[in-house]
């Protein structure tokens, strides 16, 4: 009986925890929402000391970086997973899988450090200043690629063997096998994998802060510096008080809600996958 109460209590605690997070963010961001007119969050500039709280550049910057990385990750992970499944001999595929497994455990701050020391100077030589939307999207892509490739390869691996063998014995070309057999079987899984990885890039802070340039303005090209909502919180929180702090809590809420929705949709309507 005591044991049952313990398991029930720790289960219920999950609900309490997520409720506390959402309530606290809502309550804290209410202060700025009630004292600043709603139009001020999408117009003007970001200058909390004079009461200007335009969050739109951060939202646009963050979405641009994450969409850019999604554009890169989708074809690369699909083709890499195909390579792992169809092209490589078994031992090589095992070795490469192992490398990706190791790589997916590397902390994001290391990716940021690499971006800062290697990628940003390289981009700077092409188009200054280097710390840019481009750098952010590239670092984010590299960060999520290993786990995306592994999960996609797993999805391809789970296609029923008979179908694959049958299509091969019909003499279908690789392209047609992918088009007719593989994609219809796997697109929901792959869709949910990409959904979850998009949410992951949306919430990533450290790797982006180190390479994005962090200027709160709209980017006009891929070589312009950007600031994401996550980076915005990380940079301003140490000295934020009052309405400024409350506006950062609002940013946190704006980060939370889309990624909650993405996770819920991916789990509910697409296939169940585990994020590595």
């Amino acid at each position, binding site marked *: 009986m005591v044991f049952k109460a313990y398991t029930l209590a720790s289960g219920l605690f999950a609900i309490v925890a997520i409720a506390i997070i959402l309530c606290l963010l809502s309550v804290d961001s209410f202060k700025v929402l009630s004292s600043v007119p709603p139009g001020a969050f999408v117009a003007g500039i970001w200058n909390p000391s004079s009461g200007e709280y335009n969050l739109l550049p951060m939202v646009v910057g963050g979405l641009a970086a994450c969409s850019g990385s999604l554009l890169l990750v989708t074809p690369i992970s699909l083709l*890499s997973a195909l390579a792992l499944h169809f092209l490589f001999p078994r031992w090589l595929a095992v070795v490469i899988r192992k490398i990706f497994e190791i790589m997916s455990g590397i902390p994001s701050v290391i990716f940021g450090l690499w971006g800062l020391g290697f990628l940003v100077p390289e981009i700077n030589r092409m188009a200054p200043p280097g710390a840019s939307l481009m750098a952010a999207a590239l670092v984010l892509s590299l960060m999520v690629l290993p786990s995306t490739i592994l999960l996609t390869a797993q999805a391809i691996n789970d296609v029923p063997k008979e179908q694959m063998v049958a299509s091969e014995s019909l003499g279908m070309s690789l392209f047609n096998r992918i088009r007719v057999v593989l994609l219809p079987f796997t697109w929901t899984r792959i869709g949910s994998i990409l959904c979850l990885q998009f949410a992951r890039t949306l919430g990533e802070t450290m790797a982006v802060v180190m390479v994005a340039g962090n200027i709160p303005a709209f980017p006009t090209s891929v070589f312009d510096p950007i600031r994401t909502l996550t980076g915005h919180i990380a940079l301003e929180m140490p000295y934020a008080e009052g309405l400024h702090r409350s506006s950062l809590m609002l940013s946190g809420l704006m980060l939370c809600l889309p990624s909650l929705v993405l996770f819920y949709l991916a789990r509910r309507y697409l296939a169940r996958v585990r994020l590595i």
Partner: protein
Amino acid sequence: MRRLNPSISTSSLDLAIKISAWICISIPLLAMFSIIWEMISKGMGSFSVDFLLNAPERSGREGGIFPILISTLLVVALALVLVFPLALGCALFLSDSRDSTKIVRSLRHTVSVALDGLTAVPSIVFGIVGNAVFCRFFGFGYSILAGSVTLGFMIWPYMTRAFEETFRSVPKDIYLQSISLGFSSYTYFRKIIFVYCMPGIVLGVVLALSRALAETSALLFTSGYSERMPESLLDSGRVLSIHILDLAMNVTGGDQNAYASGLALVVLILAINGVFSATFALFRKSLN
């Protein structure tokens, strides 16, 4: 039935797919080698035993990372200790299917959704909420305690999911036999799950451990920046990943030590993973 289009020359398409697949898979592999090479070539210069055993000087430009390693271990260990019973209980609640009244089933579903929700919350949000709740409301201030509680909540869903998966892997006949013998939930846990799932439990803890070691943004506003040796759990302590961030971003001339600290972090994580997967392989072998 879908028609195949014979007008496209499929063999050249196949070749194109193969070539682009080769190119695509080489991109992350090359990046991986570039990252490792960067760490080694730039960090090896100041990486030594002294580096690991000395205190940082001149805000980290010189000296080592000993107090930072200690803070990291304290934060991570405390987080694991705090969250382990919660994760165990939660996983048992989610995987125990003997009690399947309608209320319990819907409750189980809600808890599962809530856990997914916790996974979805970005770590920086854990950081600011942890700061508001533990540092301010409970009055822990910037401290190792506040950091580890926050970190614990962050790794909780991962640990729970890993546990749940191994608990579900108990064969159906063992489960049915335990019911027919009239085992209570506790006896079932103590005599079957605890024994049968021990490797899975260890694996879940290691998974959570490597996730905790990699975490930066949840600790930025909870365990703080102080690079001194922590004297109690209510002292602020800087973890390794924040040290790397600070050296690379805010300290001019701290690059070399940033790379050396990065090397230390990567080696630590790889070593933990390596040791455990080796032990695991041995364990599996002895089992068969």
